């Protein structure tokens, strides 16, 4: 098992290098270092010398991937790519183009992102699983039918409408919670309640349907019939057997998402003015701050890979027959 873990972690290294290569290639096709310099130095009264100085100071005056002027291994190491990405493997993300420390920024923004994402995730899971169980319980009745119709209708509404509508009604017309903003500590909940509720609501449709399918698959299995034949009440069958067994596919599907919760939600955060990692990313894209984009992509990829490993591990917990070698 340990050997397997180590192997997976080693396997992550080439993936991360690949991710970095793609990010670099994409970003530098779009943005020459000149563009970045101009973006940072502003529009008014920028001289070519100022741009050259900026590039030299930030280390953007080298070639991108291959340095023909250098000798030996320096052909590859004395480049922007090597200089900028090698350090990331040591979790040193450097400074944003405006001079601020990225790692520090990420740490300070993680809190708000998690404050939104975690409750949304947990509440959403609870609500959708309960709802799906309910529908399974009433399967093939009119309740089930209309429930599914409701789900399909809910998942056919664009997430934008949930946010726009929710903000308009709850905050503007009913004046129940602040329209946007974020406060630390105990004050946070009044800012969080609306985005969390909207997040849960917009996720109900698709997740419920998915869980319902899983439950229905489970309920068709023989052991359920046996349990029922024993004379167990339907509710008991559902809870004791179906839910327990179905939790396994549900959890394995969900595990990969958990690490990514750190990344926050782009839309919710920018609509509600929450200073999380999602809005950080959007800002960085808009400001063409490559250092930040690079760091976020790197972290996103690491988290994704962690999620994959966790998923694999959860498989072994679920099904002891699966062995890794």
């Amino acid at each position, binding site marked *: 098992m340990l050997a397997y873990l180590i192997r997976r972690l080693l396997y992550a290294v080439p993936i991360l290098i690949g991710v970095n290569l793609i990010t670099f290639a994409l970003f530098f096709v779009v943005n020459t270092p000149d563009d970045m310099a101009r973006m940072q130095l502003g529009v008014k009264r920028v001289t070519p010398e100022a741009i050259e100085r900026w590039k030299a100071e930030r280390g953007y005056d080298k070639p991108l991937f291959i340095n023909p002027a250098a000798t030996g291994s320096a052909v590859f190491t004395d480049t922007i790519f090597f200089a900028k990405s090698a350090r990331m493997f040591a979790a040193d993300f450097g400074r944003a183009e405006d001079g601020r420390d990225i790692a*520090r920024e990420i740490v*300070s923004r993680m809190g708000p992102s998690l404050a939104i994402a975690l409750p949304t995730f947990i509440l959403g899971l609870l609500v959708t*699983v309960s709802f799906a169980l309910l529908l399974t319980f009433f399967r093939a009745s009119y309740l089930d039918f209309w429930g599914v119709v409701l789900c399909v209708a809910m998942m056919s509404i664009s997430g934008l409408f949930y946010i726009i509508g929710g903000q308009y009604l709850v905050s503007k017309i009913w*004046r129940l919670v602040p329209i*946007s903003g974020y406060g630390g500590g105990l004050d946070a909940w009044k800012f969080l309640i609306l985005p969390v509720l909207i997040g849960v609501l917009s996720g109900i449709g698709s997740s419920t349907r998915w869980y319902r399918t899983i439950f229905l698959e489970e309920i068709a299995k023989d052991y359920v019939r046996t349990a029922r034949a024993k004379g167990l009440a339907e509710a008991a069958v559902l809870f004791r057997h179906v839910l327990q067994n179905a939790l396994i596919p549900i959890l394995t599907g969900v595990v990969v998402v958990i690490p990514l919760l750190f990344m926050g939600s782009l839309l919710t955060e*920018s609509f509600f003015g929450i200073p999380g990692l999602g809005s950080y990313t959007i*800002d960085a894209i808009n400001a063409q701050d490559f250092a930040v984009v690079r760091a976020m992509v790197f972290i996103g990829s690491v988290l994704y890979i962690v999620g994959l490993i966790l998923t694999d591990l959860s498989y072994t917990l679920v099904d002891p027959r699966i062995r890794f070698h």
Partner: protein
Amino acid sequence: MPFFRFTFLVSLLLLLTACGSEQNDPYPRAERGQNILYSAFTERPKHLDPVQSYTEDEITFTAQIYEPPLQYHYLKRPYTLIPLTSDAVPTPRYYDDRGRELPATAPAEAIAHSVYEIRLRPGIRYQPHPAFASDAAGQPLYRNLDREQLRGIEKIADFRATASRELVADDYIYEIKRLAHPRLHSPIFGMMAERIVGLRELGAALQTEAKRLPADAWIDLDRFALSGVTRVDRHTYRITLRGKYPQFVYWLAMPFFAPVPREVDRFYHQPGMAAKNLTLDWYPVGTGPFMLTQNNPNSRMVLERNPNFHGETYPCLGDPEDQADGLLADCGKTLPFIDQAVFSREKESIPYWNKFLQGYYDASGISSDSFDQAVRLGVGGDVQLSDEMRGKGIRLLTSVRASIFYMGFNMLDPVVGSLAEAQTKLRQALSIAIDQEEFISIFMNGRGIAAHGPLPPGIFGYVEGEAGINPVVYDWVDGQVRRKPLEVAKKLLTEAGWPNGRQASTGEPLVLNLDTTGGGMGDKSRLDWLTRQFAKLDIQLVVRSTDFNRFQEKVRKGAVQLYYLGWNADYPDPENFLFLLASREGKVAKGGENASNYANPAFDQLFERMKNLESEGPRGVERLAIIRQAVALLQHDAPWIYGFHPTSYTLSHVWLKNRKPTEVGHNTLKYQRIDVAERQRLRQEWNRPVLWPLAAIAVLLLAMLLPAALGYRRRERSTARG
């Protein structure tokens, strides 16, 4: 069942929320009733270091903290410079190339140097700051800190000891040297290096020094000489400029020329500080009325009153109407009035606007789309607030901004460029066809005035009434301006060789390309509108909207035909607008600011003469005449389609006093006063929550659960039986 438990919990939580008023208060409860001004910022400030900050988002903060030698009078219009930390507005002394002093009336060519002497008022003190703190031996307390000592220190408030000291001339000199600092990238370095004697040499010396030292090391600027800036005594310094540059005093009112103490610079350059964001860029240090105590540019920035502020008083003189507006009521009282200003980040305009309406921002700029709610045009065209807003006591302040939006022609383009008659007529025809008044009314909701030339109102050289109209585009009818009819444009187009939008010789249709960025003209409705304007002349418009960098690059290379841009004045002088069309600023040739690449020797000559004259005094008349000649030339040549000068409308609540819109001075926070009790009362009145929807939702949820519960019982019974 978790589902039931969940709904129960949520309803409970919502009910709890609903108790009492102001549940939607975005601020901590403890702040209620305090003398705090609430405002918002949209873009996070990138730099708070005075040598770097240049944009409006940044100057909103830096102007309250830093004090350059001069400032603009808060009430007087046109904008007038008055001393801030100096004892007078300096008048330059002129010298020829042999060092002989010349009279003020000397011709500009004869002047080799101008010298500005600035004398500071004594007794001005800095805000309390750890960099000034010293130990018993008089040595700086926080010097040569190692990483161990920095542990546990996350923000500037974590340094326990603070102190202050008096402002001296050396601090100003230090900041001017910082303009040349190779690691700070001051946006005005290139420009000032041409003016201030010795600045370019200092830049070169510092560059070599910076290469020698490690990346984060401190460079002691005192070891380097700057020949053009000299210290006369403890409170006096002199700046020597090349040639004559009457606009220099305006720069002396900007944070670029604010003081930066050497020990503060040194303090922030200790190893390990930058990684904790302990930099001058993050925590500015100044003598101004406020100091930045909380800096979280992602959500909240807090300015607090500087206890050492040098006790300025509210002005007693203003414009005639200021008395009636109650702007002189606080005459002679000590500034500042408020204890704290809280700036919250609002990226989206709708929350911003709604929070203002709920009373959680004391003043708000208004976006075009919320505008009709706020403002309607009254009889006679003056702007009024809607009844709802007037009922709330909201006031509207308008002022035309010192900026212009225009659609430029690339004068190097063979179809629309050049000063030849045909192309000029084509440009004139387009200038008539694009109905700026309609644009302003649709897209700006009337927040702007159509431009007749490059100069906005309030700038020396702008003329109102019939004499000021653009005779190429407008007529003066019945005592009012009127855009020339479309027939005139069509006739001009025919004369230009494009009858009905077809080339006279080949029948080829006229297709023009407009380059723009997504934010500017890029959004769809504007493009549709613009296409229609060109279609009026049967000209086909192709809009190429790109991202900002690409757009800039195209402009730089002259690869555009038409483009859309705007310009915000740095200082209220016509030179700052007309230089945008001077040929020595040509974008393609010189990399300057003249994006149209307009080059007309006649205009250049007028511009050079105008530049070296003062607006005040005996030569003002001469200057005005030259400016009007130059503007007439520009109107005829039409290198731009003069778009509009935007008006800024600020809405402010009844409890916010002493607010007068200003476009160039930014250190206005100190004049603001708040009636806290009134604010508290009105906020409570406006923010009673609506509770019935909660009950309705609860009922609805129950109604949905009822059939489920019934069905559950039925099914349980049936399975039990079966």
